[in-house]
């Protein structure tokens, strides 16, 4: 959403780029790309697989936001054993039918801990923030499109 907060600058952006696989497009596979923007930490097996696909196909991979950078607030589950969490949600929760912990093979298994993406693949640039401001995202994209190494100037750097 913070990316979309660049507002009308999206029209400028679209003149210079083509979107590949993204939540805004219908593409199901990652194609060869110059830039991959990854938000979110790595919490399940599917996240690992998709992250690796992005790394394989993108020349530059950017970690966007606190979750991708340090696991973020979801990594607060790292102090609780996974089995206790699943038990608490799917068995002990008073408002849910006790259907048990979902075990369909369709569903990706959770990892025992949430990890930042740089613990799984090499990351080229980081845009911190929860979320980063639209101006920070815009500034990094503009630098990358111009072939410059992105620099987050004063006021664009925050972790919260």
């Amino acid at each position, binding site marked *: 959403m913070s990316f979309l907060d660049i507002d009308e600058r999206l029209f400028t952006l679209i003149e210079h780029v083509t979107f590949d696989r993204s939540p805004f497009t219908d593409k199901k596979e990652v194609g060869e790309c110059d830039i991959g923007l990854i938000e979110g930490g790595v919490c399940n097996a599917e996240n690992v697989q998709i992250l690796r696909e992005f790394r394989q196909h993108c020349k530059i991979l950017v*970690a966007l936001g*606190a979750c991708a*950078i*340090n*696991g*973020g*607030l979801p*990594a*607060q589950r*790292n*102090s609780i054993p996974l089995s206790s969490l699943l038990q608490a949600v799917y068995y002990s929760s008073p408002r849910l039918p006790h259907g048990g912990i979902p075990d369909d093979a369709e569903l990706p298994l959770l990892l025992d*801990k949430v*990890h*930042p993406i*740089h*613990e799984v693949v090499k*990351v080229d*640039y*980081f*845009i*911190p923030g*929860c979320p980063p401001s639209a101006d920070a995202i815009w500034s990094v994209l503009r630098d990358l499109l111009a072939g410059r190494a992105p620099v*987050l100037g*004063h006021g664009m*750097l*925050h*972790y*919260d």
Partner: protein
Amino acid sequence: MSKTFTLDDKRIPFEDGQTILQAALAASVYIPHLCYHPDLEPHGSCKLCTVKVGGRQTAACTLRAAEGMAVESDTGEINAQRLALVQMLFVEGNHFCPSCEQSGDCRLQATAYQLGMLSPHFDHFFPNRPVDASHPDFLLDFNRCILCSLCVRASREVDGKNVFALAGRGLKTHLIVNAPSGKLGDTDFGGADKAAHVCPVGVILPKRRGFAVPIGERTFDKSSIADYVASRHGKRGGEK
């Protein structure tokens, strides 16, 4: 006040007995630091105030200034090392700034901004130390502790209470509460204590008072830590 040394390109006056850091701060020149507090004895644990004197690295908070000394501080090399130190502090704890009540008022965070930290770079430790909420007015989140020992020193040297201590060795070093139960609620710790107000991060927090200051109005929203520290020292008579 006739004696001086040089810090980068500036001439800094000092009085006998002053450390490099004390003299620099008195002259409103910022050297990054986390475990130093003007009202307490230096500790030398955070190493952020590392400077180069005579080609060797030393802690500016413990080395006394001497006439004609040439000190390097704000250089690419030293700032890169400071950045690595801050990154180590970030991965050793759970510094989830987005939900921390200290965000915007935190010296670790502000120092990381000052040094341009974009990511913590290293693999995370994800420590798991239970919160101590036993005290009626304060809580302790030990997962944010950077072992600066400011609360330990403030409680012992100023409050005369000896509420806190560092225990364990190496990576297992951690902050403890000096009570048979280990709980803050079983000590005489109180809101008027110096120790209640020196934590540079979000370990010692008052209860029922979080997120009171709007974003944009918090300490380090308004100024960088360099400007903040420089403006509060010097002739104004010491930092609060």
